């Protein structure tokens, strides 16, 4: 059921918000033991909020554009009164004292936060296997990963446990799980959705984004959380008071990024792209290959910068003010911090903090950090230049379909490689949407990215809607039934 239909039936009184929430809670109860998308489900709280929505409607008030719609929130985004774990032992016992701006926007629009979803610890990973609470599973094939880091949110939408979910995208963390689980995932323009209440990992790069089964739902979600005025210094609040509407695919120039189709990208992924190209041409768009030679530097540049920022952002976890307590009997503060951080952080988080400390340390700063920053600037310039000649860019979301659980965990570098085609657009700060374009090997979902110029988020969503309307998005609206 599309989100707009849920809202319509709640507002018309055809179905109460309580009934809607009960239905989805029922699906979660039956399906989540197989998928493990959720770390926390707030049954009592979501039902009581649903009763309030029903009361508002009865008394003639409008609860908002998302009246009665259950939403899942990635567990690195603050929801007042709910645990905030970031899937880490170090945040044991932490209950958020406030709502993230994106969450308060959703609540004000009548949406109901039903629970918190699983992720790779501190959003560092591409499979959810780095969660301290065990991995989520891909609803399309339970022996495979759902992607990451927002894998719980992707899996929750892909299995019909919620119609909408929030995630965060630092290097592909919304788009990768969207692609692997066969749903839509949007990484908005950097700064267009407030990060206030999002736990910082690499704050010069990351954004809050969303998941849905239909393109129209994503557009509705985005219209609620965008252009916020919050304590996030990077908010772009004043831009685009009247956004340019998407003019339709006819006459649009689409650049297919040559480097993303190179060796390492599997044949089944390329054939899904080929099919989409023919649909774009059918719709009246022009598709041409475009080369972005600096893209080969994107992965090292991204990881070096993201780790550097992580090493400084995660310095706050010391076991003193919140989370897992540091040992009071330690001989000194450094020993106390090292003890709690050594036992509280998982292996990937330790690896990234240390990699970050390394590239920021004396003697290596010039050789790694500054080179990565220079490469980032070059990549951004190349992407923006390409977006002057083409209104949209196109690339696979991931070079392969979802790997098996355990396939990539022994070799961190092979896990990083999954992000090859998503990180460039984080470095450039441009909007990128993964659409569930088709099926590849073993019938598994394959996502394709549409990328737009900064602030042209409505165009990538508009293009997705039009493609969906002409039947070009094979998995649109198709959720896995695991009951």
């Amino acid at each position, binding site marked *: 059921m599309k989100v707009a239909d849920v809202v319509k039936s709640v507002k018309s009184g055809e179905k109460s918000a309580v009934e809607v929430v009960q239905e989805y809670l029922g699906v979660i109860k039956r399906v989540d033991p197989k998928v493990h998308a959720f770390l926390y489900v707030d049954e009592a709280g979501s039902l009581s909020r649903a009763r309030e929505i029903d009361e508002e409607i009865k008394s003639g008030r409008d609860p908002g554009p998302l009246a009665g719609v259950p939403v899942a929130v990635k567990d690195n985004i603050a929801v007042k009164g709910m645990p905030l774990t970031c899937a880490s032992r170090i945040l044991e*016992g*932490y*209950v958020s*004292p*406030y709502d993230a701006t994106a969450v308060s926007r959703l609540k004000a629009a009548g949406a109901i936060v039903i629970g918190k979803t699983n992720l790779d610890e501190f959003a560092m990973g591409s499979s959810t296997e780095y969660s301290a609470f065990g991995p989520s599973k891909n609803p399309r094939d339970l022996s495979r990963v759902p992607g990451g880091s927002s894998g719980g949110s992707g899996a929750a939408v892909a299995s019909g446990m919620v119609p909408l979910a929030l995630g965060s995208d630092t290097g592909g963390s919304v788009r990768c799980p969207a692609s692997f689980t066969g749903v839509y995932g949007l990484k908005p323009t*950097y*700064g267009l959705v407030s990060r206030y209440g999002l736990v910082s990992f690499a704050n*010069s790069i990351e954004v809050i984004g969303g998941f849905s089964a239909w393109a129209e739902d994503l557009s509705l979600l985005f219209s609620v959380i965008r252009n916020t005025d919050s*304590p996030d*210094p*990077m*908010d772009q609040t004043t831009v685009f008071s009247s956004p340019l509407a998407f003019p339709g695919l006819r006459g649009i120039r689409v650049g297919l990024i040559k480097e993303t189709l190179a060796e390492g990208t599997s044949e089944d992924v390329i054939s899904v792209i080929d099919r989409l190209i023919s649909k774009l041409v059918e719709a009246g768009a022009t598709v041409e290959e475009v080369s972005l030679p600096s893209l*080969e*530097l994107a992965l*090292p*540049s991204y*990881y*070096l910068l993201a780790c550097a920022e992580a*090493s400084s952002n995660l*310095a706050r976890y010391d*076991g*003193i*003010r*919140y*989370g897992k307590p*540091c*040992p*009071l009997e330690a*001989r*000194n503060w*450094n020993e*106390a*911090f*090292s*003890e709690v*951080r*050594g*036992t509280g*952080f998982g*292996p990937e988080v*330790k690896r990234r*903090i*240390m*990699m970050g*400390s390394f590239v920021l*340390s004396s003697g*290596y700063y010039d*050789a*790694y950090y500054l*080179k*990565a*920053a*220079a*490469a980032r*600037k*070059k990549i*951004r310039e190349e992407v923006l230049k390409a977006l002057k000649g083409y209104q949209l860019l196109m690339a696979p979301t991931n070079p392969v379909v979802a790997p098996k659980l355990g396939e990539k965990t022994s070799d*961190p*570098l092979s896990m990083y490689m999954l992000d090859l085609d998503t990180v460039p657009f984080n470095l450039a*700060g441009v909007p990128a949407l993964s659409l569930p374009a088709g099926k590849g090997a073993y019938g598994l979902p394959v996502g394709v990215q549409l990328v737009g110029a900064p602030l042209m988020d409505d165009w990538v969503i508009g293009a997705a809607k039009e493609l969906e309307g002409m039947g070009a998005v094979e998995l649109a609206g198709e959720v896995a039934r695991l009951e």
Partner: protein
Amino acid sequence: MQVKVDEELVRHIASLSRIKLSDEEVKALVEQFNSILSYFSKIQSESSDLPIPSPMDRLVDLTNVYRCDEPRRSETDFTTLFPNKEGRYIKAPKIV
């Protein structure tokens, strides 16, 4: 410049990062860092001629936004989160 990572360097970085590691963790990290850095070394060869951006270079131009200086949360929002506490005070390891 291809850095050779050894156990001593890993222990030094761990100490800078305030992370206690077991001997097995140190061994595994030596191997992983060498593999990751050898892949990342292309950033040095390929971007050696690129200009170094200014530290203020960012994706969004900052503009000043003024807000009223009003408390939005209460003290107890935070004191209840203290893992080691006595009343409204944080308990921490001894300094001397």
